[in-house]
């Protein structure tokens, strides 16, 4: 009887069983950012502890950074305080920091893979719930809170309970205009926003196997929106091809040795799972959320629920300003946001740029594109994507979390409706307590920007590709 990747990585990184009944797990890579670490560093100072493995800890700034007017000090005094605190802490404890102005700066879940820090078979922790993204490489990656950040800084370990594994097999050809984002939104809708509690999600099946690393990252990124703290894809040739030549990836013979080891960490063919779910790719359509959690979604051709007897449904419809049973297509949008750790990578921007070419953003719509990292930005500019977006009436910004969450100058105002390629549509998520978010793929956001309404991208652009590119 074989093992899953989760079990192999878990066993290899287990230090011991703690008297508390938890596992002490060694963390191979700790990524940190400005928002969830200041209190953790303070705790270290108070207790006189050092950072155990500064060589396995990497810092960047993403959540609070402005995406334009980045001169220091920032206009926002509190944001300036936070970034200054991370600079000071990184210096004091000897941790590399990819700061504003550094070509390696970006959203922590974009730069880890981009720099080759994220590797198969690793345990990874970061004080951010979207750390599950790194699982796309066959790493076991945990989103943690600040007290656990303190633990990992001080000991390079965390105390944690074992997880069950649910294999989600996606099989078949994705229809035209259906992207990785639609796959994961469908999974969350079917299994529920709390359905993954206690589980790691292993994404498998031929559809996932044909996906690029960017697409796999989109899928793993939103595992947590389905309640699964960890999501992963077994490493394969696609993984290794992506990794080869990146700064922190071993080269030459060491790379060959690494590949052999990475392959050995993949789930065995006869591994046993605690649960299994099958999703048929052919049945999927472009998805849009209509409510206030990522599980409240429908196909773009469908109508929002009519059942107002359900309090949660009725509250969500009221907040969103929707009439029970109305079609979602045609809903007016005020803002279009392309970016975030879910969909702010080069292939996302390429696809959105392809949709907008020859079109222009609708009157009255504010549309912005925010690359996930300085590296993505540079690569996109080399291809002229910035010009394509600007010509179409989009703003082209610098790298950061931007409008995914209300922690920097990019925010919704009042009850604006935003078509967003990000990951959360919670009430107030985008910085206005009454702001409304519709989650969808970057291509669908691009289409909404152009028409000013929720639009089936397949109707706007004839040559939307079929399935996985």
């Amino acid at each position, binding site marked *: 009887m074989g093992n899953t990747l989760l079990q192999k990585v878990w066993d290899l990184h287990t230090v011991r069983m703690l008297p*508390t009944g*938890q596992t*002490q797990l060694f963390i191979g890579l700790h990524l940190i950012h400005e928002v969830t670490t200041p209190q953790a560093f303070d*705790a270290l100072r108070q207790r006189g502890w050092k950072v155990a493995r500064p060589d396995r800890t990497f810092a960047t700034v993403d959540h609070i950074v402005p995406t334009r007017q980045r001169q220091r000090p920032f206009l926002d005094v509190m944001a300036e305080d936070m970034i200054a605190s991370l600079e000071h802490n990184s210096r004091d404890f000897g941790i590399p920091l990819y700061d504003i102005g550094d070509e390696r700066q970006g959203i922590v879940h974009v730069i880890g893979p981009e720099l080759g820090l994220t590797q198969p078979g690793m345990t990874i922790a970061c004080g951010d719930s979207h750390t599950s993204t790194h699982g796309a490489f066959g790493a076991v990656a945990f989103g943690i809170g600040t007290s656990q950040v303190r633990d990992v800084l001080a000991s390079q370990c*965390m105390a944690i309970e074992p997880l069950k594994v649910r294999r989600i097999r996606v099989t078949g050809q994705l229809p035209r205009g259906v992207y990785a984002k639609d796959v994961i939104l469908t999974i969350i809708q079917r299994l529920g926003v709390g359905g993954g509690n206690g589980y790691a999600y292993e994404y498998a099946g031929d559809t996932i196997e044909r996906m690029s690393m960017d697409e796999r990252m989109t899928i793993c990124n939103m595992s947590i929106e389905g309640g699964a703290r960890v999501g992963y894809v077994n490493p394969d040739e696609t993984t290794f091809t992506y990794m080869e030549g990146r700064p922190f990836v071993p080269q030459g013979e060491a790379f060959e040795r690494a590949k052999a080891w990475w392959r050995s960490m993949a789930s065995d063919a006869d591994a046993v799972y605690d649960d299994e779910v099958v999703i048929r790719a052919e049945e999927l359509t472009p998805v849009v959320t209509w409510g206030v959690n990522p599980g409240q979604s429908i196909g773009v051709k469908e109508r929002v629920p009519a059942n107002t007897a359900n309090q949660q449904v009725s509250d969500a419809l009221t907040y969103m300003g929707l009439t029970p049973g109305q079609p979602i297509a045609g809903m007016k949008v005020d803002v279009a946001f392309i970016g975030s750790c879910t969909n702010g990578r080069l292939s996302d921007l390429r696809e959105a740029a392809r949709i907008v070419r020859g079109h222009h953003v609708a009157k009255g719509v504010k549309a912005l594109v925010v690359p996930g990292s300085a590296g993505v930005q540079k690569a996109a500019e080399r291809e002229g994507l910035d010009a394509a977006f600007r010509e179409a009436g989009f703003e082209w910004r610098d790298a950061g979390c931007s409008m995914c969450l209300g922690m920097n100058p990019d925010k919704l105002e009042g009850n604006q409706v935003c078509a967003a390629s990000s990951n959360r549509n919670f009430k107030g998520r985008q910085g206005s307590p009454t702001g409304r978010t519709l989650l969808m793929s970057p291509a669908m956001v691009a289409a909404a920007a152009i028409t000013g309404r929720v639009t089936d991208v397949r109707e706007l652009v004839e040559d939307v590709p079929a399935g996985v590119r």
Partner: protein
Amino acid sequence: MGAEEIQMIEGRALPMRGEDMDTDRIMPARFLKSITFEGLEQHVFEDDRLEAKRSGHVHPFDEPTYQGASILLAGRNFGTGSSREHAPQGLRRWGIRAVIAESFAEIFFGNSLMIGLACVTAPARDVEALMALVDRDPKATLRIDLKARTCQAPGLTIAISIPDHVRDMLMTGAWDTTGLLLDRYEEVNAVSARLPYLGGFSSSPR
């Protein structure tokens, strides 16, 4: 360790109805813009509270009779979403010492344990019965007994669930784990020595 030993939580309760209550609602992101957790108690559910005020309602956290409550009663998948510890920190600093919910999101549950905020579960009908009791009598004192795994209220006792090890950690004051993780550090070094990626794959894999 030396953290507080939490065996019994006694106090008034505050019913917070609704499923999938996310941490963005418990603590809106703008209040994360600080280098300390101080003052977060002022911002618990801030946007929901403002919205309630605007529409002429009183949010449970603003309800005068619930001031001073120490037990939060909640629905399914409480604390879903962002990993921000600011959410349980805000609740704890407001005065909440235990949450009884139908279920919890995993990261929230872990973050709460790390700060000694007890999270226990009970079937929906039992949580609703407690809520109804508190609706009728906001001054009622509830008593969570972790050892007996019960919550007692006047005229009503329900069974609560909490994993054995979590209960033990709270009851013995072992919920602050850093010290434990630093004990026997030679074992940590033994693990890091067997990880090929830490040596840059300089030799053959095991």
